[in-house]
């Protein structure tokens, strides 16, 4: 498939935004259980704001993929059948809840509403954060299923696609949370950094498994089935045109194998190896800038990763555009 940068930015930016929100809420839950020092409401409010900005940037990016962005509201109508439509609903839902979560913290509306078993004080932020977490996981699922539900594109048609979107989003979000904590100078850098490394390692596992899977399968259909001529020597002589068409532009990446190999090695280094090393270094050196660097490199790596994700996909329609005499 031809990689569309609008979709690359959409999926990577909202992944970071969602991961960052999950990081904030996880931090709050740990603080509630007295496992971490409680943070100021400012920390959660600003963090939610950053998450919201990232999700909004992703939303803006997605509009560049549309031929008629002014009709985008229509995309909310087919949620019964279309994962794309479900994503269109899940994204604003998550954004709304994250906005509310930040607002509740900003105005300090965190007085407990009631206390469960005398130990667990429940306030607005806990409830809204819980709903936000559900929405964020739903959004991860919708975004990934857009690709994982296309049964003709075997490189995507796998639960691994969902796992990759989930782990890589969480990893980059926690990485940003770690950088954000380092910037704010609070003590959560190590906590977020640890979880970022764990999520990154899970992502490494599923992404490498995906790469292995995608280099070891054969497409279900071949040219004989596509044309219906079951001859052992069948070759295309003409495509029906000589100037190219939508079919030759949208479904071919047109990049050399050498460049794709380079991109693969680059993203494996930038998404997985380098950020983990930088986080470990930051922990050892107690550095405040290294987590930010780790996040920056991982995000750039994720752009390459998503680019490669598109080039991995072999569309069966390409069988009809193999050669021109």
């Amino acid at each position: 498939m031809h990689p569309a940068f609008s979709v690359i930015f959409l999926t990577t930016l909202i992944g970071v935004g969602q991961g960052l929100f999950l990081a904030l809420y996880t931090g709050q839950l740990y603080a509630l259980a007295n496992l971490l020092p409680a943070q100021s409401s400012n920390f959660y409010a600003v963090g939610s704001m950053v998450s919201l900005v990232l999700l909004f940037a992703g939303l803006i990016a997605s509009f560049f993929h549309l031929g008629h962005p002014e009709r985008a509201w229509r995309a909310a109508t087919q949620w019964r059948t279309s994962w794309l439509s479900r994503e269109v609903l899940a994204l604003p839902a998550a954004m709304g809840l994250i906005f509310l979560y930040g607002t509740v913290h900003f105005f300090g509306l965190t007085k407990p509403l009631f206390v469960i078993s005398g130990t667990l004080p429940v306030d607005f932020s806990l409830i809204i954060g819980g709903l936000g977490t559900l929405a964020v996981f739903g959004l991860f699922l919708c975004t990934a299923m857009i690709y994982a539900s296309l049964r003709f594109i075997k490189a995507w048609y796998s639960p691994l696609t969902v796992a990759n979107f989930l782990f890589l989003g969480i990893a980059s979000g926690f990485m940003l949370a770690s950088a954000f904590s380092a910037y704010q100078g609070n003590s959560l850098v190590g906590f977020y950094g640890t979880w970022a490394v764990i999520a990154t390692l899970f992502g490494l596992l599923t992404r490498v498994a995906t790469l292995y899977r995608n280099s070891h399968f054969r497409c279900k259909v071949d040219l004989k089935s596509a044309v219906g001529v079951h001859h052992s020597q069948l070759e295309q002589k003409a495509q029906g045109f000589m100037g190219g068409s939508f079919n030759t532009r949208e479904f071919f990446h047109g990049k050399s194998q050498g460049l794709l190999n380079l991109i693969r090695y680059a993203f494996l280094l930038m998404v997985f190896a380098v950020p983990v090393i930088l986080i470990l270094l930051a922990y050892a050196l107690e550095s405040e800038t290294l987590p930010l660097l780790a996040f920056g490199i991982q995000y750039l790596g994720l752009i390459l990763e998503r680019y490669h994700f598109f080039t991995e996909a072999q569309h069966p329609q390409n069988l009809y555009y193999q050669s021109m005499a």
Partner: protein
Amino acid sequence: MTQLALVIDLNVCVGCHACVTSCKEWNTSGWAGPLTDQRPYDADPTGVFFNRVQTYEAGVFPNTETYHFPKSCLHCEDPPCVPVCPTGASYKREDNGVVLVDYDKCIGCKYCSWACPYGAREFDEQQKVMKKCTLCIDRITDMSLPESERKPACVLACPTRARIYGDIHDPDSEVSVAIREQGGYPLQPEWGTKPSNHYLPRRKTRIQIHEDELVRVDNPLKKEALPTLPEAGETLDDVAW
């Protein structure tokens, strides 16, 4: 339930592209607006077509066969492009099974084209909507036309009658009989999309006949070489009872 479809006979298609040009002509001047082209008279011309004719060659020279392969939307009975559409712009007509795009609802996200294994959909770069073969829906449903003309433009244009049009759910229709009796097959049946359009394979019409079957040995009316009587005299065959 009616399921309108085309049956394309690869045995007689000569690859003249008359279906391509008549399709483009009809659909670019129709109610839905033009099928736009980019740089039509320049280097690297491109544009939207509903129908293309490709050419394949089977075998090794000199024992080759050339297949001209017209390729358009197959109007699947279970179209994978329809449920993925986020706006409902892609739909399958209930009354005749034609898969269509509502160009006023399409947001141009191209997701349906990703979901079609046949590459039957083409994005209009100028109007920014997805387009595809409509089976000339404005012709075939136009009751002001005589019935003989209520057919897709490509079918009317085909000089070798390689394109047959009709209802594949009616077992007695011309298309159903052709599929049944001449080995009609769908493309990429592995996916279970159940394409409505079918293709008829190459067929060789040869009869098994031997040389001696062409000349009747015991032809009584044969004048050229009257059979000579065997030396043994008359046989039972020569005796008239």
